[in-house]
Structure formats: structure tokens, C-alpha cells
């Protein structure tokens, strides 16, 4: 069955991720991106990307918001700062968390994104 949009809520379910901040669960995911250097992500994070990182700080939320990323996926069970949590709530950015590392998570994201193309 072909679904029209791949949303953040679907990804959360697929990854069986912990949802730390709900934000905009209806946001469409178009691609993925893996990076822990914020200024690098600031240059390259694609719009509508699920951003896999271990950076659970305030500035990561700001980068995701300014670059119009779809959501943040904290990998390796990385911690989320308290102030980052409240900023994400204000900015409407969904933050998910998974136990797997970025490589495993990106592989699964790729698999999930390609599902609809089949």
C-alpha cells in the first residue's frame, strides 16, 4: 500500500523510538542527515531531514529550527538537556531517541524512506 506522506509520527513508530518532545509529529520527512558538528549541520542539514545526532543541546534545536529540519533523532541513547527540551517545545521540533547508533539508525531510515518507492 502506498502512503502519500512519510511523517515524523510514522518514523517514531518504525524506529520504536522514545518520543522526548512531540513537536510537529505531522511534519513530512524527505531525507536523513547524520552530523554532530553544529556549524557543519548549519551549512548542510537539508530541509525536511530527520537529523541523527548525539547533540542534545539547545543549539542543536536552534540549528534544526533555523534549517527547517523535520526532527532530531538522538542516537546511542544520547542525553537531552532540560533547556533544549523546552526550546524544542516552543519551536515545535520533535525529538526522538533511539538506542542504536547513527549508522544503524540511518540504515533503517533509508530502508523506511525507500519503502514507498517500491
Amino acid at each position, binding site marked *: 500500500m502506498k502512503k502519500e506522506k512519510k511523517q515524523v509520527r510514522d518514523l517514531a513508530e518504525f524506529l520504536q523510538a522514545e518520543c522526548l518532545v512531540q513537536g510537529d509529529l505531522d511534519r513530512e520527512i524527505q531525507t536523513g542527515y547524520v552530523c554532530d*558538528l553544529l*556549524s*557543519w549541520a*548549519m551549512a548542510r542539514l537539508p530541509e525536511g531531514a530527520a537529523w541523527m545526532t548525539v547533540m542534545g*543541546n*539547545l*543549539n542543536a534545536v536552534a540549528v534544526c529550527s*533555523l*534549517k*527547517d529540519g523535520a526532527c532530531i533523532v538522538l542516537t546511542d541513547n544520547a542525553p537531552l538537556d532540560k533547556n533544549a527540551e523546552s526550546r524544542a517545545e516552543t519551536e515545535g521540533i520533535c525529538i526522538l531517541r533511539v538506542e542504536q547508533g547513527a549508522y544503524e539508525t540511518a540504515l533503517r531510515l533509508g530502508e523506511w524512506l525507500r519503502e514507498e518507492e517500491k
Partner: protein
Amino acid sequence: MSALTFRYEVPGDDFTRAGEASSDVKRKLKQLGYSPEAVRKVAIAMYEGEINMVIHAGGGEAVVEMDPEEIRVTLRDQGPGIPDVEKAMQKGWSTAPDTVRNLGFGAGMGLPNIKKYTDELRIETEVGVGTTLYMKVFA
């Protein structure tokens, strides 16, 4: 038609508040109906500039002027100045301390990003006096 002008104070050494000004500008530009592309460019360039002021200059002042044709952002600080602007414009060149790198900054992409996302950029800097960035993004 005169430009809409907004002024912000950028706090020094306070990463919890860094990005507040650019987030606010992004919201305002959106509300005023600027193109998503222009909004993104201004927000990114200004955020990088803000972070630079927090890391290197102990804060400063941001002035944003919104015209129908263009958006002008001026970032002024009384920091240490940039001894070698050409070097600072190179991707990967950074003098950020380890404490800042631990936060995920210091990749040496700040000024290159600002250059990439602005239509015009002018840097006035003097060692020991401070730095002023004049950025322009066409609407």
C-alpha cells in the same frame, strides 16, 4: 518607504540565549511575507554571526533592517577583532576553544556559511577594537 528596523542585544558567553535574535528575526520575516528562501538565508547567516559574537567577542549588538527589496543585518561587537580575515573566511579555520567545540561548534564554518547565505557581505575589523559585519540578502 522606510525600512522596519529591529535592534537586539547579543549576550556574551551565554549559549543558552544564543540564537534568540535570529529566531525572532526569522519569525518576523515569515510574518511579513518574505520568501522562504530569503528567510532561511537571513536566519542562517545571522545565527552564525550571533554564535561568533558569543564565542569570540563577549557579545554585541545586532541591527536588522527590513526593506521590500532587501534585508540588511549589521552585527557589531567590541571583541578582539580578526587578525587575518582571509584565513577566517577559509572553511575549517577556527580559533574556538575546546569548551566551545564540545558544544558542537568550532568547525570553522561560521564566516564561510555567512558568505554562502548572503548576497553581499562586508567585514570591518580592527584588532583590539572590534568587528562589524554588514550583510545583505535580497528579498
